């Protein structure tokens, strides 16, 4: 059996050079992540391509969310968490001392598992990001940004008459689209989505998936998902993780139709995970 090959010896870059065309916007090289003494990610090597959707899949605890949170340094908040290796965004190491984490998070937005609008009005939810980054000096410009963001998130028609109503009063799916609108209001380059549909019903999920596909034109999207069907439907690239190692990375069609690694095969056919 050739699957005795240790995962870190697999050399994911082989697949990439072979299969993937397009401009890479994020390069992760030799990334290790530790929570205290426990290592959660081992020697991660991964490229994220511009204007595409990359889905990170794998069983629970495999490190996919940990990696996602590395891209906007959300792990900084956890005091025991330590990240080594290099992650470059636009050829700039995001851990370099001159990089301001606030500016980084403006470039790399995030949408969370559970919709988490601020308990403020819909307008203030969207306007918060532009305000703290001082992107819109005038009220007129801010109004425009709010309208544009809501339109891009497909929420304008539902929300335009109730902009001053609390965002928490929307339905779950609407709240999640509000969170997406909030994330894109600061004009990020990359949007990270951590299981954005896991708390939603199938209809709301379908809407979000449709939205993700539209947003791909403008933004680079990295999505963590537990649904392999979802990964297959919406993403162009897929990375499969197992026990803290990146097992396989490639174009989504190839991963699902012709996985090279036995563990990938077992996972997508439902035998592990």
């Amino acid at each position: 059996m050739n699957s005795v090959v240790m995962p870190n010896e697999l050399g994911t870059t082989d697949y990439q050079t072979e299969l993937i065309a397009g401009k890479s916007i994020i390069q992760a090289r030799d990334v290790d992540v530790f929570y205290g003494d426990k290592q959660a990610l081992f020697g991660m090597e991964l490229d994220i391509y511009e204007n595409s959707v990359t889905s990170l899949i794998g069983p629970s605890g495999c490190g996919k969310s940990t990696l996602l949170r590395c891209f906007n340094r959300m792990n900084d908040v956890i005091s025991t968490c330590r990240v080594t290796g290099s992650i470059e965004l636009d050829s700039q190491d995001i851990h370099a001392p001159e990089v301001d984490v606030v500016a980084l998070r403006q470039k790399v937005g995030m949408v969370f598992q559970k919709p988490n609008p601020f308990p403020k009005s819909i307008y203030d939810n969207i306007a918060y990001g532009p305000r703290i980054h001082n992107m819109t000096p005038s009220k007129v410009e801010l109004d425009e940004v709010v309208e544009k963001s809501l339109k891009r998130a497909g929420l304008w028609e539902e929300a335009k008459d109730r902009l001053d109503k609390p965002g928490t009063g929307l339905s779950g799916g609407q709240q999640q689209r509000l969170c997406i609108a909030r994330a894109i209001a600061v004009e990020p380059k990359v949007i990270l989505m951590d299981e954005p549909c896991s708390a939603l019903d199938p209809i709301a999920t379908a809407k979000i998936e449709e939205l993700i596909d539209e947003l791909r034109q403008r933004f680079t999207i990295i999505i963590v998902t537990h649904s392999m069907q979802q990964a297959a439907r919406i993403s162009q690239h897929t990375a499969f993780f197992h026990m803290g190692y990146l097992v396989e990375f490639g174009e989504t069609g190839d991963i699902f139709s012709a996985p090279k690694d036995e563990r990938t095969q077992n996972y997508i056919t439902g035998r592990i995970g």
Partner: protein
Amino acid sequence: MTDNINILIASSNAKRQSAERSFRVYGIFAIILSLSFLFIMIGSIGLRGATAFKQSFVQIEMEIPSDKIDADNIKRARFGKLLKAALRDSFPDLKSRKEKKQLYKLISSNAEYSIRDQVLQSPEIIGTKAKFWVRASSDVDMYLKGYIDTNIPEDQRRISDLQLSWIGKFQDAGQIESRFNTRFFLGGDSREPEQAGILGAVIGSALSLLVCFLIAFPLGVFAAVYLEEFAPKGKLSRVIEININNLAAVPSIVFGLLGLAIFLNFFNLPRSTPLVGGMVLALMTLPTIIIASRAALRAVPPSIRQAAIGLGASKVQTTFHHVIPLAMPGMLTGSIIGMAQALGETAPLLMIGMVAFIVDVPQGITDAATALPVQIFLWADSPERGFLEKTSAAILVLLVFLIVMNLVAIILRRRLEKRW
């Protein structure tokens, strides 16, 4: 076999149900018992205190002679003499000094000043014969309220048979009236029960609480915010947390001694003042506010913090734009409950001298003052029968303030609380 098991299950079910029933009965019994204690307590205080809101007044008809009162200098006139003369005129058959003294004791010793004030207000009555309503003395008031038993021997009671006969005559002539005791609410303390009021103590308490809030709320909230949101979680922060919890349980008199040693003896701040009282109460309330504020901060869902940080808000922005506004209702409620606790606190105030007898209503935080619970303590300590009802009435006032503060806390929480 299965029959056996069914019987076992049935018997265990019966046991379980009876256990649940009896537990419910214990619970109801405990609640009834505690409610009845509360009812008895408030009922007895209410019954005793209710009469303090009324005060007996005696009508005296009195000559205001223009030759003895200078209309330009009314204050210098000797109303006491005139009043005594008027009293003697009502009962002309008195001879001995002893009898006259008894007669003067029917009305409050401060009555002459209330007549003076009435004359000052309407000087046109000078030169006429006018009728004045003056406070009855506390003994007469107590008798009229039914607190003095006339069946016991004369030499063992505060009111003699002769005085009783005069009171009877006043009553027959309609010269005795029970009125609402405004002075109780609008006056300062007095040695005479019929003159004593709680305004001084209420203002003293209010000023102390104001100082306490202005010091303890910002300090407590910022300490809680730092500990909860910014401080590295380690051994040191755990030690601090344990110590804050311990401080909340320190007997309040210890804070009083600390205030005495530091604020009065070291910093030489003015003794007996709401300023120092408020500072001592702030020391005492601080741990309560910190604990309540930390709990309120912890109740803010982490998803809100993540949302703000994910958008690029800094730690301080996240805390001040989102976390503190969401935690504010809880912080305010905790603080108000802490302040209510401080309002009822006596021991630390005794230590810093707020137990002094002070007649004047304090005008500012550096005026000598007393506080409501200390006033209750002082009155409860007084031997006069008249202070008994005053004590109960002051307790009622204190309870009303406490209930109002707790209601405000509940309303604030309902009003400000946001759902997510």
